[in-house]
């Protein structure tokens, strides 16, 4: 996993040095080319070797999903702020987390906090659950399962 990541970075620098153009499109092209070369080289090796090539597309997809969610929620909040009536139904919810290590919990809370309307208020001492303050609470079970499916599962898939 880490080996292939470092190899990919090495290939980017080799590509940039060979072409001699220090700009972003060239870096991106070097990354794509290096990724493709490494993918071809490890095509016949076993599955644990190929983990890197499954993980990178997943990370990119997750970032796109996250940006979409963030924009969507931002528009929802924006409409609520501009229009005269309040549609908010705020609530403080206990949410059981599957994330175990400090790093996973930090990433999860950061992502929850960055989607508008939701905010982490408290983390339990034994790290089994967190308390989320949300602005749009219609159905508690639905909110929890949505959070689990859309955010936490995908995040843990990437980090583990």
């Amino acid at each position, binding site marked *: 996993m880490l080996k292939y990541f470092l190899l990919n970075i090495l290939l980017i620098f080799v590509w940039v040095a060979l072409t001699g153009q220090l700009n972003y499109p060239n870096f991106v092209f070097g990354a794509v080319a290096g990724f493709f070369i490494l993918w071809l080289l490890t095509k016949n090796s076993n599955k644990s070797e190929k983990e890197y090539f499954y993980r990178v597309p997943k990370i990119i997809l997750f970032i796109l999903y996250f940006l979409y969610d963030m*924009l969507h929620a*931002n528009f929802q909040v924006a409409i609520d702020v501009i229009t005269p009536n309040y549609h908010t*139904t705020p609530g*403080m919810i206990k949410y059981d987390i599957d994330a175990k290590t400090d790093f996973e919990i930090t990433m999860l809370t950061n992502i929850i906090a960055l989607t508008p309307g939701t905010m982490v208020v*408290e983390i339990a001492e034994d790290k089994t659950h967190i308390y989320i303050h949300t602005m749009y609470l219609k159905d508690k079970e639905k909110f929890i399962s949505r959070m689990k499916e859309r955010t936490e599962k995908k995040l843990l898939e990437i980090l583990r």
Partner: protein
Amino acid sequence: MIDILIMVLSTLGAIFILIASIGVFRLPDFYTRLSVTIKAATLGIGCILGAAAIHFSEFSITTKAIAIVFFLFITSPVAAFLIARTAYHTGIKLWDKTVIDELKDKYKEEAEKNKDSDKK
């Protein structure tokens, strides 16, 4: 084409920040205000910095814009979390129409436990 992209990004950023400042004025309680301000402002600054990076399209400026957005996305949720937690502990009340407050139960239990241990 690039001009249009710059216009759209900078306008969106300005609108998000404007909405955040209206939200501070209009929303009912401290927690909803906090959750609107920090996120909308983060996204707005991100959009404006993106527009600046595209406008100058220089290596050094793009790098700086990416670094600023990265650190902003890491630090501002932590600030929001700490402010909200401190507010809850100092006893700032939730809005009357708040649906549920499960955090309250936790502190009730803890307070009772502390009382028991004090008696012992």
